[in-house]
């Protein structure tokens, strides 16, 4: 019973981590939006700024991406390689694809285009985070209940 309850708890913790990572990415998008809107900041500088912010410093791919750019790799390649290399287990494949596709369009259009891009991806990330939160709630309850049922069933069999 305890083991199943723990599995349930572990699962919901993982979803919570996923929501946290998505929220960080959303915060990065928000910052980028502001930096583009007010100073048309270049992509590299936006990433550098994000890496220097305490709340974003541990966002999984930023430092790797900057390192790859610094060693002379093109931005799009650095973005995709750093994400593939450092993707955290809590993120689902859909989340990774979303972050990858954002990088493909980052810096490729004018200011208005970039602002719309950040806005659109922010919405998609919010949606993903909401879905994950709902999933976390329902799955945590489900696994706890499943743990109790399985424990009771096991006890009956043993008796």
């Amino acid at each position, binding site marked *: 019973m305890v083991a199943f309850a723990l599995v349930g708890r572990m699962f919901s913790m993982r979803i919570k981590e996923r929501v946290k990572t998505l929220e960080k990415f959303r915060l990065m998008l928000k910052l980028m939006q502001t930096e583009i809107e007010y100073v*048309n900041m*270049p992509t*590299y500088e936006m990433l550098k700024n994000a890496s220097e912010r305490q709340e974003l410093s541990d966002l999984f791919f930023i430092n790797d991406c900057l390192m790859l750019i610094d060693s002379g790799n093109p*931005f799009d390649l650095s973005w995709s390689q750093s994400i593939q290399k450092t993707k955290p287990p809590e993120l689902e494949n859909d989340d990774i694809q979303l972050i990858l596709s954002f990088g493909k369009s980052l*810096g490729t*259009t*004018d*200011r208005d285009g970039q602002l719309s891009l950040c806005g659109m991806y922010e919405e998609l990330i919010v949606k993903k985070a909401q879905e994950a939160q709902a999933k976390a709630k329902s799955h945590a309850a489900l696994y706890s209940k499943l743990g109790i049922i399985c424990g009771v069933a096991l006890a009956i069999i043993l008796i």
Partner: protein
Amino acid sequence: MQDSISKFNEAAQCLAPIIRTQVLKISDIVKKDVREIRIKIGVPVMIVCSCGTMLVGRDGRTGYIYNENFPLVTLSDVKETLNIICGYSLHSCQSSLLEGYVTIKGGHRVGVGARAVVENGVLKGIRDVAFLNIRIARQCKGVAVNIYDKFFNHSQKSIIVSGPPSSGKTTLLRDLSRLLSDIGGSKSYRTCVIDERDEIAAMYNGQPQNDVGINACVLSGFPKAEGILRAIRSLSPQVILCDEIGTNAEVEAISQGFNSGVSFVITIHSSSKSELVAKSQFRKLMQTGIFDSVIILDGGVKPCVIKEICKMEEFYNEIHRARSFDGCVRVGGQNVFNEN
């Protein structure tokens, strides 16, 4: 020679990896003579030297006649080059792309050939970039020494530099800024460079890519009139340097600056003395009485060669002499403007 080669190598860093490798293989003798690198979809990479335009081959060999050893530039090469030039941030270079050029690290200027996106008659953006022209920046130090000695070493005058395209007006202005504002020189000034098109100081990430002097403050990207007024208001310059004066607002700003005790070094496009007199903004500048002399550049093969230094009075006299009964002013036997 080493400086010319390193400048070439620096400019070549903005090229897409495939063509960069090819261009970097060019021999040092050719590299030091290259003025431009031209990239166009469907044709080999071209370089412009003093002996004309040459094609660049796979192994860095150059030639004039096309054969299969000259690989053709592809759309993805041009796209990748543009991305590198803009630091993968087209939005940051938006205004300069609309102007048709981007300044890159080292002060090199990249001209962009593309299709215009026009909305209600206003240029909104560009697309289908098909051509890039990288002009290699090479600073000529010392070309303005004589002018500095004559007009600024023992006095502080305002001057106009005039000449045809590619005669070295901007180069001269840049060197004059360096001489004027270098602390430790015979006489040093607080200067302000109004660099609307990033041609003089070529600012990149907040740093001038050309040496414009220690004590020079660069206002980059500001419209000239706005930049002059801003400099006067807040930067307390003694000399303001400004390229290609052309509008009434700019003349008005210069006039205000002079009233605040600032001297000016400006340039004006003109192929001849008569063309200069025919320009309304030049006549307006004459009327302000601010400028002491006009330096007319030769415009031959060698840049920054001074053809003539004329006192402003000479222009007054010439116009006065040339004024006919019908009010037309003729300089060099040519009607240049009508006062009526």
